[in-house]
């Protein structure tokens, strides 16, 4: 696709986060992702600043744009009031819309993330919910949390929660009318179409990789190659 820079400029986050970068590297110095991954937000903004479509497209197809944790520490310290984290959000959005996210290991993780949050929001009204936050997928949460999940309803009652209950309170059952409104918002604002798009691109990539969708999604959630890390 041509005119990628112009596409980025339509994104409000890009317009808020991209001014004239002086390439000082302050963002990289404070970046938690740069601690861990082969990642340098200064270089990303420098590439975007070239306005070169071929270079921007290579970014959109790469693992690089998925390393950021969106903590926005870079926003605080940038002497020119740029927000490399906001530029990243715009790049990711464009990568998803164009289907380029399936070309990288970290980009393919969008499928399990989309399923997790779409299901939690539309079925429960929460981004995180006890019925889907499985201990088996979060074993670092330790034996106390394992105990908690094994005695979930009793433990939550002891904590004063209103789990699945009517009315206000902690982990209440969100009324169906409210869930219906969330679904309508998804339909009207493009989230439903976004889910369809992510699934369609992912299914095509799964076929190309010779995997079922279940295998593809599980691998995206669990597998990490060694190529991402700082030495």
């Amino acid at each position, binding site marked *: 696709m041509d005119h990628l820079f112009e596409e980025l400029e339509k994104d*409000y986050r890009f317009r808020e986060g991209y001014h004239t970068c002086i390439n000082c590297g302050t963002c990289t110095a404070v970046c*938690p*992702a740069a601690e*861990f*991954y082969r990642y340098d937000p200064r270089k990303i903004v420098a590439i975007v600043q070239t306005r070169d479509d071929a270079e921007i497209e290579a970014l959109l197809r790469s693992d690089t744009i998925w390393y950021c*944790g969106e*903590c*926005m*520490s870079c*926003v*605080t310290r940038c002497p020119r009031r740029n927000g490399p984290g906001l530029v990243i*959000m715009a790049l990711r*959005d464009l990568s*998803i819309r164009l289907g380029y996210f399936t070309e990288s290991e*970290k980009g393919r993780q*969008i499928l*399990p*993330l989309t399923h997790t*949050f779409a299901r*939690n*929001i539309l079925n429960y*009204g*929460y*981004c*995180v*919910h*006890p019925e889907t936050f499985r201990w088996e997928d979060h074993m*670092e*949460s*330790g*034996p*106390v949390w394992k*105990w908690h999940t094994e005695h979930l309803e*009793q*433990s*939550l*009652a*002891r*904590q*004063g*929660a209103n789990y699945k209950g*009517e009315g*206000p*309170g*902690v982990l*209440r059952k*969100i*009324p169906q009318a*409210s869930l219906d*409104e*969330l679904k309508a*918002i998804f339909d*009207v*604002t*493009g*989230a439903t179409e976004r889910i369809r798009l992510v699934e369609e691109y992912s299914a095509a990539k799964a076929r190309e990789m010779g995997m079922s969708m279940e295998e593809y999604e599980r691998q*995206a*959630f669990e597998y*990490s190659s060694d190529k991402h*890390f700082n030495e």
Partner: protein
Amino acid sequence: MIYEGKQKIWKDYQKEIPDDHWYFVRSCIRQNFFPASERMFTEITRNVLGKDVYETPYHTTCGGIAYHCDTLPQETAMTIVARQFALMTEAGYENYAASCITSFGNYAEVLETWHEFPELEARIREQLWKATRREFKKPKYLAHTSDLIYHWRNQIAEKAKFRLVDKDTGEPLRIAEHIGCHYAKMFPSKGVGGAEYPYVLTGMVESWGGQIIDYPERRHCCGYGFRQYHVKANRGYCVSNTHKKFESMEPYGIQAIVTNCPGCPYFMDRWQYFIAEQTGKTYGKDGFGIPVLTYEELAGLVLGYDPWDLGLQLHQVAVEPLLDRIGIPYDPKAKYLGVNKEDLLRPSLPQTLKCF
């Protein structure tokens, strides 16, 4: 820097916090991981301080975590926020208090973006009407719930039964504070004290008798990183950043950590367990970890609530050494009991991290 200059800078980062009548929205993460803290916020504000804090069962997630995992278009996230504002408007409130730091940052971002781009606000109003037939006014005041506990910190101190002081030595406890990134890193003027010198938790700790200890990586992210935790393959990012913080604070003799973010206390508690089991290293004294508390847990302790009513049994790092140091009584046998002393068995013990 001359004194007047410092005063001017400090004034720029002060925040007007109305004393009463707040519309309250809950945090997805906190309701899951610190359910008793969510309950204690309303318990303390309504029943101890006598404030009007209103909650409707019809509010939902703000979508902030999904948005920062890049799974929602920006306009979807904004329209969910607009619906939350509509519920506030319908309830007759104009002061909006969010229990989640991600939400607080999300609301601040939405309001600032609408201010910069009014045509986008108009579009979101149209989309909200089309989807829900609702309309909204923007909040007059936006606060994080830690702002409110900060605002009322001295009233809590007046009612306190305990102070954050070592009962044997009389010395203030050595406490580190950890501020959630989205509290003020994006919009420093929205947080008490700004992004570099936030005072919201420091003010509470000082008011309740403790001492805040500085350390080099005090402002470093806990390592949550949204997609970096919610995808199993990425969690090395999370533990690496938490590890960096604990290595940095190790020389300073920290006795407890207080946080105002939903995820940070979970990660800083659980990764201490993981680091201990993987490497054999612990950061507290005698094989224990350093307890990481929410501000409601800390407020509840000084107000004299039973530690198990505050949910401290859900921490992986044992809190008993901290309770003993302050002199807070507790019943060890009641720690893992359910309602009406129902027997719920006990968690297994880690191999390295010392727990009860």
